[in-house]
């Protein structure tokens, strides 16, 4: 239920924000009958109303039932953790962060370099085990990626800058 409150509030805030942006759009030449902001404004108003409705609805429901059932999903997840031999808490957070770092470094270091690192980190994080094994699988997988996507399909992945750029030309 808390989640619904949060969703409702986020919806209201975001819709309101973009509505303000929409209304502030200068009246540019619109060669069509309905200007570019007509439809977005309609959608945003609609979403705003829905957000408010959700808020009210959740509040009304909250008064009727007790909240035993809608407990934190997190607690049930934690019970499963103990069965595994290797487990880092809140892995999903690290996954997100590592992908974000990957995308940040991608234009700088180039695809060839960062991808193995990401793979290595994720594989280790998800419990692959001995580092040597992880490294081996990383190398094999990355060769597959490179052959498949770069040599066969010719997708132009970012090359990075400077020395990394030159390095990438050796491979593709």
């Amino acid at each position, binding site marked *: 239920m808390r989640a619904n409150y949060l969703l409702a509030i986020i919806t209201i805030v975001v819709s309101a924000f973009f509505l303000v942006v929409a209304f502030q759009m200068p009246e540019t*030449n619109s*060669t069509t009958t309905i200007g570019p902001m007509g439809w977005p404004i309609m959608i945003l108003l609609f979403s705003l109303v829905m957000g408010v409705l959700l808020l009210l609805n959740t509040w009304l429901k909250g008064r009727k039932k007790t909240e035993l059932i809608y407990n934190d999903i997190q607690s049930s997840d934690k019970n499963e953790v103990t069965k595994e031999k290797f487990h880092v808490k809140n892995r999903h957070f690290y996954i997100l962060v590592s992908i974000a*770092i990957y995308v940040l*470094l991608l234009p700088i*270091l180039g695809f060839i370099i960062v991808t193995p690192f990401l793979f290595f980190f994720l594989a280790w994080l998800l419990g692959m085990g001995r580092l040597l094994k992880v490294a081996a699988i990383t190398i094999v997988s990355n060769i597959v990626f490179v052959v498949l996507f770069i040599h066969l399909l*010719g997708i*132009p992945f970012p090359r990075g*800058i*400077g*020395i990394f750029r030159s390095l990438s030309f050796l491979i593709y």
Partner: protein
Amino acid sequence: MRRNFLASKSYLVLSTMLLTLILLTACANTGDSASNEADNYPEREIEVYVGHGPGGGTDTFVRTITNQMSDIIDGEFNIINQEGGSGVVAMQNAMQQPADGYTLIGDSAYAVTTAAGTNEYGLDQVVPIARVQSDTYALQVKKGTFESIDELVSYAEANPGKIRIGAVGTMGIDEITARRFMKEAGVDMNYIPMEGAGEMHSGILGGHIDVMLEEVGPTMSYIEDEEFEPLVFFSEERIDDFSEVPTTVEKGWDLTDGVERYLMAPADTPQEIIDKLEDASKEAMETEEYQEYAENSYLDLRDGWMGSEDFKNKLEEDIKKYEEILAEIEE
């Protein structure tokens, strides 16, 4: 002990530091050595950024011409489609690459997007290699609706705003040309921006729009099948295969611009490479295969070739011209 370390936050920190170190090394080493490699050019794949969708006019042009060029200069081309903003997104991405001659741009809307301000790379930052195609616009209607351009114009004069004229896109060369036509002919028509050539053709076939601004290349099949009829061509001289169709100039309308298709490169690209590409594209244009393609698509109605220097000057003039036109339209 080892297990704990690997699971600990310190490992994360260490690896981040390692990555940062690499990052710093990269910064210190930016910039390729500027070696004169025009003689060995190309040593690897040349990427051509095309800011228009695959299968479209510009894309087909780039693929065809580079196909021929790759034999001539003994190199491989890799076409990268990046739609968005009528070529602006592709231009942006291409300009991020070093100007070593391995990044080119294929475009047809440069003058307009620069004049409109959406493209921020002026002719001091990007130069044309050559113009290869100069397409000719025409106004076409469904056969049987209007017999001549005069009929269309008089109808439009008598019924302002009623004729629906379609062209592809908004604020692009299509719309600008359509509006210039309306101004020159002194008529008020209802401009409908169509999603793409396909929708425009089906719009005419289905009677949803009355007239369209479209080259005859894509519609040749319909013309032969007697579904479409061109009423006027936007050129100075009559077209051979359409000798009964008048031109805009005959009618007293100063409108001969069409869609131009060309290759461009970042301005800092070594001049020798640009020259080499310019010559290659001219040779490619003169090959039999290219000529055949141009003929089939009616892209050879007028001389398309214009060299780097000449075309650069033309673009400068065009940009100024479109800036004025756009300002007028906005009123």
